[in-house]
């Protein structure tokens, strides 16, 4: 079998795996109801199974797949653009801005004004943070300046979030802000899907189009330039694409770590070092990882407070990442 064949089989297995996870996700929840009863009841128009399947589990599953894909693809694009394996979606201030916007909405009470106020505030935060990074980095500076600008904006957002927590008007506001930042997809609705999905798709399309540029960039900036790649334009595309995809994702889910960092690393062997192949693969892997993590959250729920999705991805992601590093080191020596 040629490497191309092996790769194709790998991709097919991954696709099948992700779809299976998505299907399983529809039938795992907090209420014991068999899949047959859930689907049968929904088709028969029974109120309770219908509301549970259509209004709670479908949006949750769709968001798991979409948010995971957004984090995965953005992670891959960032790592490609910055040529740094430690880059992750939030590095350039995108998730920090979304978090700050959402936290401010919770703090001021705007979040209660209408249903989508919270994610929309996240959008606004992302847009402002991204614009600020652009302003700081400019179009023609080096990668280091871009990273520094992103880190600066991220830490500024972090500092402002701490300030908001410090000023928080009551313990309930405090706990809601903290819980939101831990990241979760529990009890989201179709309206969240309708809001986030178009932006995530637009961002993903924009990022998928960067594959050729990122492939050229693996040969170095000068070579990429000589191959006709306009680095400034590529950078704008990646940044706007990430802002759209991750900004929308974080706005509905809260901060979820490690998926964007781990997914591209997992897929690198399968992509054979080609960023244009890595982008869709990382999206798939991210979708599968986040759905699996959210399934675990639901299965682990006994009673009492739910383990937040972002906590679980960080808890599982960190050791996983360590193993990955150790394995890479062994291969190198």
């Amino acid at each position, binding site marked *: 079998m040629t490497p191309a064949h092996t790769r194709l089989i790998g991709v097919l297995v991954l696709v099948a795996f992700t779809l299976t996870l998505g299907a399983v996700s529809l039938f795992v929840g907090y209420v014991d109801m068999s899949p047959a009863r859930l689907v049968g009841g929904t088709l028969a128009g029974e109120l*309770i199974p219908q509301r549970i399947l259509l*209004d709670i589990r479908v949006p949750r599953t769709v968001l798991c797949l979409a948010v995971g894909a957004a984090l995965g693809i953005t992670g891959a694009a960032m790592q490609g653009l910055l040529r740094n394996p430690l880059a992750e979606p939030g590095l350039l201030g995108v998730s920090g801005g979304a978090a700050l916007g959402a936290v401010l909405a919770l703090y001021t*009470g705007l*979040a209660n004004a209408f249903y989508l106020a*919270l994610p929309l505030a996240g959008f606004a935060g992302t847009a402002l943070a991204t614009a600020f990074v652009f302003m700081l980095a400019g179009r023609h500076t080096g990668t280091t300046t871009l990273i520094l600008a992103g880190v600066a904006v991220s830490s500024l957002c972090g500092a402002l979030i701490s300030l908001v927590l410090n000023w928080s008007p009551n313990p309930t*506001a405090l706990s809601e802000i903290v819980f939101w930042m831990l990241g979760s997809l529990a009890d989201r*609705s179709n*309206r969240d899907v309708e809001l986030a999905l178009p932006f995530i798709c637009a961002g993903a399309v924009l990022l998928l189009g960067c594959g050729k540029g990122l492939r050229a960039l693996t040969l170095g900036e000068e070579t990429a330039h000589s191959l006709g790649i306009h680095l400034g334009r590529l950078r704008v595309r990646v940044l706007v694409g990430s802002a759209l995809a991750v900004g929308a994702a974080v706005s509905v889910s809260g901060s979820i770590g490690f998926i964007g960092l781990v997914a591209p690393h997992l897929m690198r062997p399968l992509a054979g070092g080609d960023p244009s192949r890595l982008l869709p693969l990382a999206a798939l892997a991210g979708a599968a990882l986040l759905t699996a993590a959210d399934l675990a959250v639901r299965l682990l729920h006994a*009673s009492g*407070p739910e383990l937040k999705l972002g906590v679980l991805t960080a808890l599982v992601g960190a050791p996983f990442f360590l193993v990955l590093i150790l394995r890479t080191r062994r291969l190198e020596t």
Partner: protein
Amino acid sequence: MCTQWRRPGLVAILGAVALSVAGPSAAVTPSRDAPQRIVSLNLCTDQILLQLVGRERIVALSFLSQDPFSSVLHEQAQGLPVAYGSAEEVLTLEPDLVLVGTYTTRHTTALLRRFGIPVVAVPGAQSFAEVKEEIRTVARAVGEVGRGEVIIARFEARLAQMQAGHGATRPVATQYRSGGFSAGRNTLYHDIFEASGHDNGAARAGLDGYGMLPLERLVAEHPDTLVSSDYKRGTPTLGNRLLQHPAITRMGADEHILPARETVCGGPWNLDAAARLAAHHEEASGP
């Protein structure tokens, strides 16, 4: 060694300061008699106390005692001094009895006990049985056992009367607020729902005490009424964003707001809340 030596010394100094501030009367109050200078540092003990003793025996109530949102007896508390719960402040009031909540002003309580001031800690009722128990505890401490029993008897009679009026079918009520928090078994809400002729949906879904209720479980119980509180509805995050979730709006449950002051602390007013809920159900189900 050093700290062991220093601590009693410090207490002695503080004690001397307290005594000099308190003046001679603190030592004169006879300990056998019913306390005459009572301080309450907790919203719930404020209200139990106001039912049991005359104003002249109350030296200070908690800072929430006059808040119309928090206290049913806020009008009765008007004009009485307010304490914020620091030990210095309480010592200068020269109390012969201090009522506190078990989980509030913990350090103050420890300090007051070290100065030999009688402190009665009341944990906060989570059921009607505990409401009665707490009235008895405070009544005993203030020497008004008879008055306490009268209040309890009236409470029981009204509860029995309400329960006798319940219909055969029990509608489902569930308390629900932003973040998915709800009240299950062993909460005041549970007994209030019970008294109003409702089943508690959160308890049926397996929730014990206050905690998170996943939306799915709420929907599965299909409550007729979602109960929320009017407590600081205007302030951030205490509104009810989650009630706008399509799974809830399409379920057709109506929202009913109960005054926070009738559900936060245990007392006869819990039955007022129950009566409101029962009246709401009658209104909603029509003649």
